[in-house]
């Protein structure tokens, strides 16, 4: 590994300094929940084990004590019911922030998410707002049991009526969650579990003006654009660091809003770099990488010096621990087609390996 530390890299995105506070991502989410619970009495936090326990990841720690059992409460184990209740609460003027405990346990709630939450505003011709933010600890990389490492962004991004966010830094975790809760549309807010413990500066006081649907250039470069979200952004930054040693300057675009997607941001980056690689943990086939690839190809075909590559999880069921360590997507070959050949030495806990020049 190079000497690049996690902190240094994130610092590049949001400079530490006066006005920022060093927080882990789960602390940042917790602070954002404090902020919205404090500013808006119609906000409610509920889900499995979010109250007394403070959530299995302690993301909701202390909220029940601060805002009471009426506004922060545990529910029975009923994911469909949890979202159904959120829909009813929204119809009665509340701004619910339900948590589904893990990505893999949101499947029982898909009907309520797709057929009810996402469409109620439409069905009622705009009379019933659905300002619901579904918090969903997401993605892999924590060596957990089955169903605790799913990447569901493609499912949600396909659904009219939903918006989907997936932050990669504590600072974005904080500000994107504020935006999501304050928005009057339903948002599926996917928190990369593998990044919960990583720290970085957060501009708590700032009122971020970036609109919903904006991407972020996490690193500037000119030879190719790596496009990622969630935990994969950090991986891409590591890849870019290694590539830089080899004289290859990779741009890293943190998509962060998976619906709507920042098409302009993608196109303007690719117009400069002429090559793009989209990286995600979800299986390859019909993953969101396909959308990113198709979008770039449609809008920037003449700019592309090479086809957009996808570096993704394999089309397999998310594996158990040790096997997980040995399943990594096609980082090397795919990147190499754009950027010269690397080999890899890091079988890290997350899906995408760090690549190293050879």
């Amino acid at each position, binding site marked *: 590994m190079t000497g690049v530390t996690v902190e240094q890299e994130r610092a590049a995105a949001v400079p530490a300094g006066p006005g920022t506070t060093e927080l882990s991502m789960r602390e940042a989410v917790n602070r954002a929940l404090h902020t919205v619970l404090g500013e808006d009495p119609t906000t409610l936090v509920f889900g499995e084990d979010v109250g007394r326990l403070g959530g299995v990841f302690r993301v909701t720690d202390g909220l029940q004590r601060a805002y009471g059992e009426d506004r922060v409460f545990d529910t029975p184990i009923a994911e469909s*019911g949890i979202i159904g209740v959120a829909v*009813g609460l*929204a*119809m*009665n*003027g509340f701004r619910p922030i339900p948590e589904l405990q893990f990505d893999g346990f949101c499947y029982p709630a898909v009907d309520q998410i797709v057929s*009810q939450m996402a469409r109620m505003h439409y069905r009622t011709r705009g009379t019933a*707002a659905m300002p619901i933010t579904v918090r969903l600890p997401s993605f892999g990389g924590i060596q957990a049991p089955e169903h605790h490492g799913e990447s569901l962004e493609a499912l949600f991004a396909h659904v009219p009526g939903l918006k989907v966010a997936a932050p990669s830094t504590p600072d974005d975790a904080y500000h994107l969650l504020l935006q999501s809760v304050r928005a*009057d549309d339903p948002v599926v807010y996917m928190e990369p579990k593998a990044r919960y413990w990583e720290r970085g500066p957060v501009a708590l006081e700032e009122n971020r003006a970036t609109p*919903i649907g904006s991407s972020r250039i996490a690193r500037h470069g000119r030879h190719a654009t790596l496009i990622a979200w969630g935990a994969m952004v950090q991986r891409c930054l590591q890849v870019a660091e290694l590539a830089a040693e080899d004289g290859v300057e990779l741009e890293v675009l943190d998509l962060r809003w998976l619906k709507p997607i920042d098409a302009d941001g993608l196109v303007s980056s690719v117009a400069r770099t002429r090559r793009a690689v989209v990286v995600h943990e979800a299986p390859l086939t019909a993953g969101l990488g396909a959308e990113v690839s198709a979008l770039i190809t449609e809008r920037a075909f003449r700019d592309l010096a090479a086809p957009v590559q996808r570096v993704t999880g394999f089309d397999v069921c998310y594996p158990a621990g040790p096997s997980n360590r040995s399943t990594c997507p096609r980082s090397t070959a795919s990147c190499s087609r754009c950027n010269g050949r690397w080999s890899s030495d890091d079988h890290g806990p997350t899906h995408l390996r760090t690549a190293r020049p050879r």
Partner: protein
Amino acid sequence: MQTNEGPAAGAGLPALDDLAPDLSCAFYRDMLTARLLDTEAIALQRQGVFPAYVSLRGQEAAQVGSAAALDRERDFVFPTYREMAVALTLGVDMVGYLASHRALWHGGLYDPMASRFGAVNAVVGGPVPHAVGWAMGERLAGRRGCAISYFGDGASSEGDVHEAMNLAGVFHVPVVFFCQNNQWALSVPNERQIAGGSVAARAAGYGMPGTAVDGNDAAAVYRATREALERARSGGGPTLIEAVTYRVEPHSTSDDTTRYRKAAEERAWRERDPITRLRAAMRAAGHAGDGFFERAEREARATAEQVRDGVSAAPEPAGEDLFGYVYREPTGELARQRRVWQEEVLP
């Protein structure tokens, strides 16, 4: 297999003793109007104005009796797709309601929030937890409204209904689960739908009162619903009511009942017609006479015809609405797609 232990629907005359004549008259007017409107709607489907229609015929007492017990200012109804008489009783704009059946807009063209009658919802079981959430909100806000969720015997098999009832029990919220057991879920009868034979019997398992009521007796339904609402309003938590009735028409205008049930069964139930029974009881109790019934008929017919003409003539919503209501806060991508639509599809 157990059978339904509730009162056999349709036996004897409704008992009106404790009911003010005003109320039975109101029931009658709404039930008859719903009946005539239902008949017009079936005709509109035959004429090709509606692509399809689901009749509530035979269920007027269950719907009007329960809806009449609601507080229109405070309560909120979560319907499915067969609650036309509930909508009518609540004063929903019926042209807007029937617009859903003309396929002008899935949820209907009335204002569900102002009407306190949710949008038409085609997912069997899906809206039941919404009622629980709404009721939780009501309690949190310190208001005194109740939610009522209408669903069918078939819907009772869905996981969502269980989750909703358990949540309502755990949070002890003011909600009434109102099951119209019309004996059939499309082609499937109660025996193959409801283990144990009784939806009302499920209530005990959630620690809530459950009651089966003659769904073809408007007064009995009214009393059961009023009692449940009073309990809910005073902090007594949820109640499950099973109104035992019958779907005398096919499931929808596209359905063919000869494939799965006997004409004799339908006939027998048509004879226990809730409107006929209410009229007889009103006469017997001296609540009303010929004059009232004739006037009611005239007025109901006028309303039905007016709504029929209204819904037939209602303009189609603007095509732009397809794009306008997806989000409250529009996205650039959808604005782009709307432009494509305007340029390529609209002309």
